[in-house]
């Protein structure tokens, strides 16, 4: 794998994470518990899709085959998508969406803080924008986790169930393969080993305040680095890509 191929793959992974989670969050539009929350979830969705646009645009530049960010978003099939499996998990109840946000936003907070120091100027610039937005996402997720966990018996049970149900998708956030390792050598990629410890500490801190139990180390799901997904991604893409598949190059 050349450095160019590794960088292309790295940008796709980051872009796909943002795009698929952005799509999932957009599904809450008009369905949230109340209007302010509807705005919050769709605002975060917008942040994600904006970040995906920047990252996929850069991926297309790196690849250099004349594609655009739209080609990458709308014309790749499932096995060519590399988003973390946790991003494609269904929204579930509100507690599941919040647990997913807590795991991912905590990861992104430490990840993008570090990517800001990347030797790749474009990635560093995108990271310095993203980190400001991620702080809001993380505060939002932590506030809700604490409010629901330390709330009624019903809200506590649901929040605990969501935290436990999604746990097995969290291990994949810290997987490193030849893409990360070769870019890490050049000071471009983020080292995920120290991030894992920071992530665990912060999750534990929030869960403790929320009177919830931290799940124990367990079997972790994996596959997305190789393009292997859960059945959920196909359904997302069939909806997201429908128009460009049915009417290629359609514009309005």
């Amino acid at each position, binding site marked *: 794998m050349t450095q160019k191929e590794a960088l292309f793959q790295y940008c796709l992974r980051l872009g796909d994470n943002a795009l698929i989670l952005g799509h999932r969050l957009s599904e809450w539009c008009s369905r949230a518990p109340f209007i302010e929350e509807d705005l919050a979830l769709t605002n975060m969705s*917008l942040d994600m899709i904006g970040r995906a646009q920047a990252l996929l645009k850069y991926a297309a530049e790196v690849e250099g085959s004349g594609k655009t960010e739209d080609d990458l978003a709308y014309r790749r099939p499932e096995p060519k998508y590399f988003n973390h499996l946790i991003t494609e998990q269904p929204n579930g109840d509100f507690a599941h969406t919040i647990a997913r946000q807590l795991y991912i936003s905590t990861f992104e907070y430490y990840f993008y803080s570090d990517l800001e120091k990347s030797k790749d100027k474009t990635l560093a610039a995108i990271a*310095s924008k993203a980190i400001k937005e991620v702080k809001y996402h993380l*505060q939002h997720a932590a506030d809700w986790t604490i409010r629901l966990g330390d709330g009624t018996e019903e809200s506590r049970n649901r929040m605990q169930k969501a935290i436990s149900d999604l746990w097995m998708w969290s291990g994949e956030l810290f997987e490193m393969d030849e893409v990360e390792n070769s870019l890490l050598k050049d000071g471009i990629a983020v080292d995920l080993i120290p991030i894992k410890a920071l992530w665990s500490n912060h999750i534990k801190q929030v869960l403790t305040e929320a009177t919830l139990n931290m799940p124990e180390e367990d079997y972790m799901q994996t596959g997305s680095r190789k393009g292997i997904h859960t059945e959920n991604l196909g359904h997302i893409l069939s909806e997201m890509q429908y128009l460009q598949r049915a009417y290629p190059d359609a514009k309005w």
Partner: protein
Amino acid sequence: MVTQQVDTQQVFDWISDIPDPEIPVISIKDLGMLRQVEFDNNNYVVTITPTYTACPAMKMIEDEILGKLHQHNIDNVKVKLTYEPAWTTDWLTEEAKLKMKNYGIAPPQHSSCSKLFSTAETVVCPRCNSKHTEMISRFGSTACKSLYKCVDCKEPFEHFKCH
């Protein structure tokens, strides 16, 4: 060969009063979104930066810039989007903050340095100046604002987030 007809500073001045589409009392220059104008390869290159990565106003601002310069018979214009350096509320002038307040939006208090889990900043009601306010939601009608209410005058209002 197109020569540089006018000074880049003049071009900058012509477009600097274009209003922000969301907060029309403030210009794109006041907000710090308009970064610079250069003359390069026979084109005026206008560099703008988004407040938020997905700021949906960017296309509209680009169209406004092209339209405004067209009125001055300048059509060799390219609008360039940059993320570096990242936009921050530190670039808002005191005058811009005052205009924002008079428009009914509580301006950001200070810099972008909002620390994670720091105690929430005191947001002053733009209508009655009370410090007795509560956050309703971190996210408002646009990506750059959050929702508050004033406990004293009971009015809801928007706060331009520190960023």
